[in-house]
């Protein structure tokens, strides 16, 4: 069953690539969309089958490639990530049909897209080093091509792609080195061999492997301080690709950390968890603060991805800490929270990126400060974006709340514990998660409120119209997922148990119990029922509405101007913008963010006391980019300049180098 589904996924993806190659433009977009959606559906079915209890699927293709060939090992942990990828990929592919008909429809893009979707689903299924590296590289290259999709009329895309290419390949280097050390020590390059042989490695070596893997996979996940590519690359890709990158691709970084650290290596000392936890805390804070101040909608969403990955890292790190202190049931809860958030984030971030794409294609801008009033011009986009925004703000009764609740429960119930690290880390972690939660709410009130509500701030926003039907289908499907994931705890309990059990180094037992309506945790006296919460809210709203409308004594007066303190004119220029909305919080966090603020005041020629115009500009630079990467690039450039002196174009000199090299090699290989 699982094998058949994976096979269908591969065949459909191949057909989609072929369609992207040969078909004419319009048919190409449509068929690529349909076939990719089919491929993703098949992949998703395979994942769900494993999560629902089918046996894990293994296959071996030793002759497919030199070295070890390719092994497929598809267990419940892989399935979580494959399902997350499929969850975004199916709606994104359908969305891509409408999107591509008005935008990126060139051949390379249409070929790379199915390849990206397929490799995203298959990376977690890889069962050996060769397979993982090959699939990983397919994913990296296809996504790179897609980031460059709009480079002709968007110069930003080129710098973004440069950053992305460099970081992604350095990260691949770290991953390969880590896995090679591990494979060498364990005496085999299949995951099964590594799992059983990891014990032979010394503690120092395993820690080196873990840190290298954390660096490499962390870069893909976009955590601080190796996140710099993310807020550049994600906004520049076409929106359905951004959805895939944020919803699915960064998750594979998380997958890698869990797989290598706590499955293949079988877990390690407590400080592994602590490191992951600290990285998570830093990423969450850093990401949300930048998202808060961003006024470019897609950049905001990209930074928010860093924040969400941070939350997932907090869960994993906490699980690592708990497991090292022997509290494995609690570790299971924390891990379940992290894994659930992987799926939830795929749903709502995919939705939000698709929504941002709809806005972009309707108005031609991503700048929140020139949007507004779209709720009545694009009702479907507005309603679905609202669902996504409420979900990501972890508000009940949507899915973000369920995973945030699980995460908080696991953190809060860590005490009393004997370990000082836990005691010191957990209050800090709860405080950060809480602050982040509050700031996320503020950020997405800003995003939704300034983009969709009140009056349009530009002509483009005023003339916006709802996007084509296929794009709406994608949005509605993902919004439906956000609701469904929240209301069906029954469906989640068993798959999460299987996935957590697959990570042998962390957890055991059943993290979540459910009797269909309530969600209960093992070892923790706490319950939640999103379904009943939603019902309660609905009933109360209906009752309130009924009471208000009962007597019908009041009239509703519509289409009057808003109360503007009696002013003659009420224009969009008087509205709060995204920048002004974030201003109080920016002031609170001034010392952390150091935004650059320019205020230009033009005076009238007659007198200094009369002001013609005031311009306010705020820019927040990425501290890591400024302080870490640009100096580093400077060093590299200087080194390059120095190296250039060696290279003066003289063919004799080059031949001399060859000769010297040959002699050195001969001596060394003696």
């Amino acid at each position, binding site marked *: 069953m699982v094998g058949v589904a994976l096979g269908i996924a591969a065949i459909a993806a191949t057909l989609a690539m072929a369609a992207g190659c040969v078909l004419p433009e319009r048919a190409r977009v449509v068929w690529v969309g349909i076939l990719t959606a089919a491929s993703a559906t098949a992949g998703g079915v395979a994942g769900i089958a494993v999560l629902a209890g089918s046996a894990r699927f293994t296959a071996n293709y030793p002759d497919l490639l030199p070295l070890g060939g390719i092994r497929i090992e598809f267990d419940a942990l892989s399935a979580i990530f494959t399902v997350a990828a499929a969850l975004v990929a199916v709606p994104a592919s359908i969305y891509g049909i409408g999107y591509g008909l008005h935008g990126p429809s060139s051949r390379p893009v249409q070929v790379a897209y199915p390849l990206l979707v397929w490799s995203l689903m298959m990376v977690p299924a890889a069962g050996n080093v060769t397979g993982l590296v090959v699939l990983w590289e397919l994913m990296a290259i296809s996504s790179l091509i897609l980031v460059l999709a709009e480079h002709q009329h968007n110069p930003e895309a080129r710098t973004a792609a440069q950053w992305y290419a460099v970081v992604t390949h350095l990260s691949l280097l770290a991953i390969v080195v880590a896995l090679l050390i591990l494979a060498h020590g364990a005496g085999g390059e299949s995951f099964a061999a590594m799992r059983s042989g990891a014990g032979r490695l010394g503690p120092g070596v395993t820690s080196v492997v873990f840190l290298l893997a954390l660096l490499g996979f962390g870069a893909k996940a976009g955590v601080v301080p190796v996140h710099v590519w993310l807020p550049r690359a994600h906004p520049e890709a076409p929106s359905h690709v951004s959805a895939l990158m944020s919803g699915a691709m960064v998750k594979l970084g998380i997958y890698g950390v869990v797989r290598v650290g706590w499955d293949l290596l079988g877990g390690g000392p407590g400080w592994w968890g602590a490191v992951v936890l600290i990285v998570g805390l830093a990423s969450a804070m850093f990401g949300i603060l930048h998202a808060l101040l961003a006024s470019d909608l897609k950049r905001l969403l990209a930074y928010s991805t860093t924040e969400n990955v941070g939350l997932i890292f907090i869960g994993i790190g906490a699980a690592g800490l708990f497991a090292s202190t022997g509290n494995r049931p609690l570790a299971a809860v924390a891990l379940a929270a992290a894994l659930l958030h992987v799926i939830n984030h795929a749903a709502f971030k995919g939705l939000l990126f698709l929504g941002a794409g709809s806005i972009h294609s309707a108005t031609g801008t991503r700048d929140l400060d020139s949007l507004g009033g779209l*709720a*009545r011009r694009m009702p479907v986009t*507005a309603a679905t974006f609202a669902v996504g925004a*409420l979900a990501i*703000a*972890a508000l*009940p009764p949507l899915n973000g*709340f369920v995973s945030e609740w699980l995460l*908080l*429960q696991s953190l*809060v*119930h860590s*005490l*009393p514990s004997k370990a000082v690290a836990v005691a010191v880390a957990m*209050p800090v972690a*709860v*405080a950060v*998660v*809480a*602050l982040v939660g*509050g*700031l996320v*709410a503020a950020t997405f*009130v*800003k995003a*939704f409120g300034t983009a*969709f*509500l*009140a*009056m349009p701030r530009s002509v483009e926003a005023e003339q916006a119209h709802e996007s084509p039907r296929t794009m709406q289908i994608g949005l509605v499907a993902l919004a439906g997922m956000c609701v469904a994931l929240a209301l069906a705890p029954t469906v989640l309990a068993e798959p999460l148990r299987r996935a957590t059990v697959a990570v042998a180094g962390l957890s055991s037992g059943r993290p979540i119990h459910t009797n269909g309506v309530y969600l209960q945790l093992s070892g*923790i*006296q*706490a*319950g*939640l029922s999103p379904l*009943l*919460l939603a019902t*309660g*809210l609905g009933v*109360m*709203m209906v009752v*309130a*509405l009924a009471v*208000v*409308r009962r007597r019908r004594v*009041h*009239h*509703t*007066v519509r*289409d*009057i101007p*808003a109360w503007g*303190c009696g002013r003659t004119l*009420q224009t969009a220029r*008087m*509205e*709060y913008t995204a920048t*002004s909305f974030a201003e*109080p*919080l920016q002031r609170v966090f001034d010392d952390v963010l150091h935004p650059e603020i320019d205020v230009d005041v033009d005076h009238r020629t007659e007198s200094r006391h009369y002001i013609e115009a005031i311009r306010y500009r705020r820019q927040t630079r990425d501290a890591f980019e400024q302080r870490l990467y640009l100096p580093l690039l400077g060093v590299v450039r200087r080194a390059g300049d120095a190296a250039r002196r060696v290279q003066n174009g003289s063919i004799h000199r080059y031949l001399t180098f060859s000769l010297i090299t040959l002699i050195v090699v001969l001596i060394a290989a003696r």
Partner: protein
Amino acid sequence: MSLTGTAVALLQVVLTIAAAPFLVGVMRLIRARLEGRVGPPIVQPWRDLRKLLGKDRMVSDNTGWVFSIAPLVLLASATLVAGIVPFLSTKSALDQVGDLFAVVYLLLLGTVFLSLAGLDAGTAFGGMGSSRAMTITAIAEPTVLVAIFALSVSTGSSNLGSIVAATLAHPATAASPESLLAFAALAVVTIAETGRIPVDNPNTHLELTMIHEAMVLEYSGPDLALIELAAHLRLVVFLGLLSNLFVPWGIATTAQPLQLLGAAVAVAVKIVVLAAVIAIVEVFMAKVRLFRVPELLAASFVLAFLAVTASFFLA
């Protein structure tokens, strides 16, 4: 979800809604008396609500569906919380439906919708109120959750019923450093979240200093009635939480009518006492500058943080 439990929860919701406007009436009366005035009768907030229900509902041409459903969501979230929080009995049916975290996030849901509604009006003051409300809510959030953390460390659960039951079983914990610290922290947050002095002035008429009022400037008639009722309810819910989490005595542990009656009286007395304290303090205090509010909330966060540390290290 037992039948009696459901009945208790419903009773609680009905009683809270009935009592909430009276509480505001009491607070206004106390303030008036301290200012040398006679003050409005305590039924006045109810009269205001009744009148508002009969007034025209005005919907400006800028606004959309968010503006229309925000009052409903705000009221629904507050009512649901009123059903979850153990005012009358530890045996409320909604206890397993949501714990303290759910309560916090439900209240946040209301705030978020109100802020969106403020933005939807498209006026400068609406946006200003929303921005400020979200700022304060965001930086109050760590205090709330860390205080909950402190409470749940000593009781081993974040379920409201369990926390209350644990405090009932061990009365001495009510005066332990961690619960006093957590109480102080939550008290500050209560003041911030319910928009009382020194964070926000509920009686202000100056738009530039408003937070809550600025968001609702555009509402009229029945919509305004819903928002006002929700604001009253939130005040009761916060004060009720504060009193029953830390001083739960009097709460019913069964669902017998007589016990429930006693519990209702007990919780009413506790809430009125807290409200009176707030009203009296407000007479002596001025609103602080908006950008001093983070300092106040930072202090409350520190209290909550110390509460966790104490509960962990002193226990």
